[in-house]
């Protein structure tokens, strides 16, 4: 059931709107690849084209070595999981899972065995005779997954599979999907706007923005070495400090941050700093700040710091590093691993927010 997905120059317009613009990437055999981006970034349209539910204007789609650009959705043999489950409402759980085997005219005993095997796999065996409206959202999505897997698809495509579920169920199901994938190892392409989901589930992340691919890389590459300001701002949360390139550094008034060697001298630049890369320093720290607010996140505290230049910085600091400092106190901090990019674009306006992955734990 293995097979990679290769996408080359995929393009699709709706009227004058370019939904997907020259997208290329490879989803490797047996791995989970996430298409990550905000809504309207074209990730769902790309996925639907791979499934055959939409027709590309140009580009090529290769699944398991075969060119599938012109084939029908039925011929592609992909498993597709919809955000809103799309279970057949007039069929029981068992009948839903059996559907793909039925229309392919598989032997009755084989069908039965396969359905039972899958219901076992998704822990839905006790609910086989229920109808979809008698199930919770998480249960419905597990049935949808079993249904998609039943005909042994070459690849599994998931369109925001947890998007309609509440936070708790979403986390449980995500973990469960991770384990399931380790067990069955089918090539999976997951569309999501949730960076935490992508980081946790995927072996590879394709970050999309306004129809284009911004970066393709492993979760740590995308997180630690963002290729563009958009990726730096979208994947994980970041503080954005604006300054100017002087001698390979970004100058920010009273201090400068390194890492701007590749940028043109004298140009306006922005430095992205993760909240956990803000460390409390001793008296000799370069950057002086006033603590405006302290919010406890358990063993961590989220500090809202105001720099002397007036800019606001969010920091995630282990409580023990604070040494009792509290709101109103002055402290010195080090800013580690800054990522410098040229020219403030409109994405840079996004101010940093509480990082959901830290807040949730």
């Amino acid at each position, binding site marked *: 059931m293995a097979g990679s997905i290769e996408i080359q120059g995929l393009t699709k317009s709706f009227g004058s709107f370019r939904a997907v613009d020259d997208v290329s990437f490879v989803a490797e055999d047996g791995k989970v690849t996430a298409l990550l981006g905000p809504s309207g970034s074209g990730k769902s349209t790309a996925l639907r084209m791979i*499934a*055959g*539910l939409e027709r590309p204007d140009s580009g090529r789609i290769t699944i398991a070595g075969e060119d599938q650009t012109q084939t029908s*959705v*039925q011929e*592609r*043999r*992909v*498993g*597709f999981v*919809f955000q*809103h489950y*799309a*279970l*057949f*409402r*007039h069929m029981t759980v068992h009948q839903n899972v059996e*559907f*793909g085997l039925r*229309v*392919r005219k598989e032997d009755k005993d084989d069908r039965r065995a396969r359905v039972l095997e899958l219901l076992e796999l998704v822990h839905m065996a006790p609910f086989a005779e229920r*109808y979809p*409206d*008698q*199930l*919770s*959202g*998480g249960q419905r999505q597990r049935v*949808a997954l079993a*249904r*998609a897997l*039943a*005909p042994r698809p070459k690849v599994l495509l998931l369109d925001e599979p947890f998007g309609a579920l509440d936070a708790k*169920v979403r986390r449980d199901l995500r973990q469960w999907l991770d384990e399931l994938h380790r067990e069955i190892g089918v090539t999976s392409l997951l569309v999501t706007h949730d960076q935490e989901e992508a980081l946790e589930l995927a072996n590879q992340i394709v970050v999309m923005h306004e129809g284009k691919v911004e970066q393709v890389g492993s979760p740590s590459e995308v997180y630690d070495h963002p290729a563009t300001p958009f990726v730096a701002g979208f994947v994980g949360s970041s503080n954005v400090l604006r300054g100017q390139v002087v001698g390979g550094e970004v100058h920010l008034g009273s201090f400068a941050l390194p890492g701007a060697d590749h940028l043109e001298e004298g140009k306006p630049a922005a430095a992205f700093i993760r909240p956990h890369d803000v460390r409390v320093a001793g008296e000799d720290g370069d950057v002086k700040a006033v603590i405006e607010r302290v919010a406890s996140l358990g063993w961590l505290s989220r500090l809202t710091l105001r720099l002397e230049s007036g800019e606001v910085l969010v920091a995630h600091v282990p409580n023990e590093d604070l040494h009792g400092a509290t709101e109103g106190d002055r402290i010195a901090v080090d800013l580690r691993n800054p990522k410098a990019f040229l020219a403030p674009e409109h994405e840079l306006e996004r101010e940093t927010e509480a990082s959901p992955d830290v807040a949730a734990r």
Partner: protein
Amino acid sequence: MSAIAREPGGPSMSEEDITRLRDRDARRGRVVRGVMLGVSLLYVGVLLLAPLAGIVLYALRAGIGTISSTFQLSDVQHAFTLTFEIMLVTVVVTTFFGVVVALVLARDEFPGKSLVSALVNLPLAISPVVVGLMAVLLFGRGGWFEPFFAARGIRIMFALPSMIIVTIFISIPFVIREVVPVLEELGMEEEQAAWTLGASRLQTFFRITLRNIRWGLLYGIALSAARAIGEVGAVLIVSGLLQGQTETATLYILRAFDQYQDQQGYIVALTLAAFSIVLLIGIETFKRRRTSRTA
């Protein structure tokens, strides 16, 4: 029934349901509600139930003998057969084309869609008598299509074909009007899911789409059938009123009263009414089913 939670984390009463109940509570005071309820019951009772009771009374007063002799009249038997034939053809045609048109209206975008959408309702707005006249203009002596059929010896006017044509025309809207909103509410995801699972378009239509629209479709069919049975205005004009030939049950009733055979008229009328009530029960059942299990 599907609105009640069955398990923790299961589907609960939807926000819509709660809002509706809350609105019902808040809507109006007790007195106003009582008055409106009274008016409604009176209105329905006087205008609907009283005439029905009248027919039942007059028809049954004749006694079993007259009733059975009425049904043995060849004109009466022929009239019912004709009505049934017209209804059957009408239902088959309006169902098939109704579903096709509904699929197009619900799923496709094309220029002039809203015009087509409005045109579908035209038969509801035009008096059946006018529909009959239009048919005369097309198929009658000197009509556009008359030479074509006359040359082939096919009789349209004052014969079954024209009666069927006008009845179909009048019954066009029902299936379309009932099926389009159901299709729109369903969306296409289930169908797309079926495609990804390997089902062909035809398999998908019969196994998924048709199953999902079936109650709405049956509701539309029942309305269509009821309309076809009750039709009199258009059929009156195109039939030529040939006794024992182009006389439907409704036309028989008209003639019976014209010729002071009130008794037979009432009996045939009651039979038609009874059939309509059976359809109505069907309609209500379908309507209720249509709205359940769509969550």
